[in-house]
């Protein structure tokens, strides 16, 4: 399978499948189950295809003459595409029970789901600002709608409103920034911009700096960094659980994928101008997120707030990126993966036990779960431990990389600060465990009806553990080392 083929086949399949479901949705043969499985199968197939692009270093512009070098397919994008598809697949698979119990997953919801994945795929490959923006908008708009999918719910509509309004607002900053860069460079291609930066002094880069600043603000909005991420709690609360999981885990990664590409291709002024800002942002984000997380009484909102903290950790790694060889760049990919799998699991468990209601899962709702549904409880515990960065989970290895890279770049206080935030996070993550096991239940029993969801929750939990301790010495299954190498390849392909 040639790389060009993969680069074309994956988005094309997603698109085709989306349009197929859209049309199929009108026919009387359509049923929610069928739509669901078509989507699932599509994601599986595309994942299988895209995974072929991972593992060795390659990089090529896709049809440079036709597409005018606007998209690049390299190991970096292949890795991320595989991640999104896996994430989409897992979040959908775990959501099976939720989807079955609700009535607002109309055919269009699967269509939009696939479209959003399509947008992310293109976003990762995009090597040009406007293309990236449109791809981002495709993904965002699909997600906007998915957030407001439950039209019965006032909360969902309100979340849709806030997300759409603020999203459009932030998008206009991107455009303004792009305009400024275009005014300076006369091009929006990332490679050309990089070259321009290399060849000119700071005097001729003023607008690029300003423009990058504006683009950064959009990105910060998307990853919900304080103070741009005020929406995140409301929107996560309003959206239905599978969508929240999808947003928190997958969508955030796609934004990071783009920002890493931007950072590593336009590296010079990033360090100069943005490192202090990102450090400041990381600190504020971690403080803000943990402040919000400690006071929440609902698990979902706590997870939402904690996802802000995790953005903070990723920003530590962003600040620590010095060049392609620094471990920070692969650290961030590993961390993204670790957060992604843990968050999908955590939200997935919530959606599994929420029985399709849009009721907030409060901490008290978890009481006695450890006794009544031990498997679910253990899985949730594992995800919580991973999010908290407890050793022997993948979350710990992720944090380990992040902190190491920060120290390596000379930001030891920042790593210390991250550790302190991680320490605070113990409180709210372990609170979940306390409620799971130590509180008397009012006898709510979860039905083990949907084996598919359960199976995938357990698989995620296993990945979390394996990612924390796995070595290829035992069973010859790739462990941490392999993941590490993959992220290294991905990064190295950016300068290939």
């Amino acid at each position, binding site marked *: 399978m040639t790389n060009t083929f993969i680069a074309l086949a994956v988005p094309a399949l997603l698109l085709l499948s989306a349009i197929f479901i859209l049309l199929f949705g009108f026919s009387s043969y359509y049923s929610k189950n069928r739509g669901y499985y078509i989507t699932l199968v599509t994601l599986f197939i595309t994942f299988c295809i895209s995974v072929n692009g991972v593992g060795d270093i390659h990089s090529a512009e896709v049809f440079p003459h036709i597409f005018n070098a606007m998209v690049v397919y390299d190991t970096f994008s292949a890795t991320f595409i595989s991640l999104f598809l896996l994430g989409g697949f897992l979040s959908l698979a775990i959501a099976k029970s939720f989807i079955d119990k609700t009535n607002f997953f109309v055919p269009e919801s699967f269509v939009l789901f696939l479209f959003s994945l399509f947008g992310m795929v293109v976003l990762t490959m995009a090597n040009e600002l406007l293309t990236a923006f449109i791809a981002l908008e495709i993904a965002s708009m699909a997600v906007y709608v998915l957030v407001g999918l439950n039209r019965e719910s006032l909360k969902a509509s309100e979340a849709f409103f806030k997300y759409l309004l603020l999203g459009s607002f932030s998008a206009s900053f991107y455009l303004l920034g792009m305009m400024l860069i275009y005014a300076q460079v006369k091009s929006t291609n990332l490679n050309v911009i990089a070259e321009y930066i290399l060849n000119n002094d700071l005097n001729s880069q003023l607008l690029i700096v300003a423009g990058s600043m504006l683009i950064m*603000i959009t990105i910060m909005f998307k990853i919900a960094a304080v103070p741009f991420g005020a929406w995140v709690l409301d929107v996560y609360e309003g959206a239905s659980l599978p969508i929240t999981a999808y947003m928190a885990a997958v969508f955030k990664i796609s934004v990071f994928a783009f920002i890493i590409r931007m950072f590593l291709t336009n590296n010079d002024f990033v360090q100069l101008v943005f490192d202090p800002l990102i450090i400041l942002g990381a600190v504020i984000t971690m403080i803000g997120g943990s*402040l919000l997380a400690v006071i929440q009484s609902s698990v979902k909102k706590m997870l939402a707030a904690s996802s802000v903290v995790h953005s903070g950790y990723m920003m530590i790694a962003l600040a620590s990126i010095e060049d392609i060889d620094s471990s920070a760049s692969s650290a961030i990919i590993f961390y993204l993966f670790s957060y992604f799998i843990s968050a999908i699991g955590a939200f997935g468990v919530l959606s599994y036990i929420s029985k399709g209601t849009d009721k907030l899962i409060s901490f008290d709702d978890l009481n006695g779960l450890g006794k009544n549904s031990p498997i679910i409880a253990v899985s949730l515990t594992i995800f919580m431990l991973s999010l908290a960065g407890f050793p022997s989970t993948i979350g710990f290895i992720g944090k380990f990389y992040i902190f190491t890279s920060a120290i390596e770049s000379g930001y030891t206080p920042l790593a210390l600060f991250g550790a302190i935030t991680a320490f605070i996070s113990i*409180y709210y993550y372990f609170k979940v465990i306390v409620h799971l096991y130590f509180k008397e239940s009012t006898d709510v029993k979860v039905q083990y009806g949907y084996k598919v969801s359960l199976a995938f929750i357990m698989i995620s939990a296993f990945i979390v553990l394996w990612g924390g301790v796995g070595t290829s010495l035992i069973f010859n299954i790739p462990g941490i080392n392999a993941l590490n190498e993959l992220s290294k390849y991905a990064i190295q392909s950016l300068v290939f």
Partner: protein
Amino acid sequence: MTNNILLNILLLAPLTSALLIFLLNISRRYTKQTLYTLLALSGSGLSAMIALYISYTSYFEQKLFVSNLFTWLNIGDFTIEVTLKADALSSFMLLFVAPVSFLIHIYATGYMDKDKSYGRFFTYFNLFIFFMFLLVLADNPIIMFVGWEGVGLISYLLIGFYFDDIQNTYAGNKAFIVNRVGDFGFLSALMLLFVEIGHGGFSYDAIFFNLSLIDTPMLSLIALLLFVGAMGKSAQLPLFVWLPDAMAGPTPVSALIHAATMVTAGIYMVARFAPLYNIASDVSLFIAYIGGLSALFAAIVATRQYDIKKILAYSTISQLGFMFMALGVGAYSTALFHMFTHAFFKGLLFMGAGAIIVAFGHKQDIRELRGIRRSVPTIFIMMLIGSLTISAIPPLSAFFSKDAIMGILYASDHLDLFFIALLSSLFTVFYMFRMIFVLFFSENTTEPSKNSVKSMNYPMAILTLLSVFAGMLNLPEIFGGNLMMSSWLDLADKHFVFSHANEIFLMSVNTILICFILYYAYKRYAYKDTILKESTTGLVANKFYIDALYQLIIVKPLYALSFFFDRKISHDLIDTSINSMALNYKKLGKLFAFFENGNVRFYALYMLIGLVLGFIYLFLLLKAML
């Protein structure tokens, strides 16, 4: 080779019998008292026989018994061997410790007859002998310390033997804690000694050989600390407080542990370290004064005590004070000699007291036991002899030992010590005969509840004989003796020039004074109820308020400190501040959540503020760079 085995058997016999009794007792299969008796007596009897043999051989053949058991510790230079060694001093100790123990064992079989804790009692008792032997036979101070602490521990267990009454166990606690304060000094001294010269080995011989390597201040410190240990064990001022309370234990315990053996360990230890104290002469003097003060103080307090055993306890403190006075001026063998006689007569007195207590249904207050001469005539005679002995009436044994001490004090440069000793000696006569006259010379008010047990009388009889004749062992030249004990022990005694005329003069004055006091006591107490009219308040009756003082300056502040530490510092200061940090973080979170007010326009406003701040930063940065 056989000698080593003898030593081992001497040590292990009581341990074995203790273990066997313990196992029988704990398994609760055998409740037959005879079996316990047999085991207990065979253990202590065996060791008593061996002890006599060893001292005999030691005296007549100057034989040294050494038995190396095993290496206790070996770290670098620090080697502690568990070695038993019976030199002259140890043999001398064995000479009275083992037989007296055996006798008191016999006595105890009667005293403890039918007691439900019979087995437990003899477990402890035999264990005690084991530790005492370990103390005496140990070849290095660390192992001696093991024995030293061990006897303290058993003493604790035995004082609180009747634990149904929690006050008894508190008395035990007090004994152990006060003893440990002394041990603190002892252990510190040993450690300092080791730090200074331990690298050359830590047996007594090695220590004394290297003693010159230590500079004088350090040596004085070590000597002083060692004496702190002796103070605790031998109940000297200010660590005497436990001994009167220790009378809560069964009377054989008081007789054995708190009169004859354990409390003399301090004397033994100071004598053992005689080479050290000879160098540290200022500390020696200090010891002498502490001993003098203790002797006088205890004698005074004893004059206002009503409990038989407490009177005897204070008397013990007083007598130990005499011994320390002797030690302090350097007359080691004289001190040991007094210790030797003291073991017999004090054992006897305690046994008598015990016999009375048993006979009169566990009454101990002399005010309730008046005029019992006719009820217990044998005990009366033996008690009378004991009291005469302690009063140093010639030719009873204490006459020789005590007058030897007085003479030495007189001959030394410290006449003040001599007068203290004289005064104490007179007080001794007074309080002893106060007790005797009240007990035996007044109208009979009390009837015995049971006749004395035979097995209690025999050992008393033997001890009576011993207390009469033990003085012969160290007969001074003036009476045709040759100080055979002193020459056997061959300690580094200081010699004082002291004419025979002076000696005789002293003895006579002393005896006359004693008789005078005796007469005074007779006038005051015999066939009168003076005792009932004595005031129970006042300085002396309240033991100079020393216990209250301890309570006030040590115990109460400690509890207050405990409260302060636990509540104020740990809880109020540290824990509360940690908890409030967490709480405040939550409060801060609530405050911060105020910004998350759900209004989308505010969210946009925050974005704007972030944007503007970012641009201001950018502007300043670019301005700085360009």
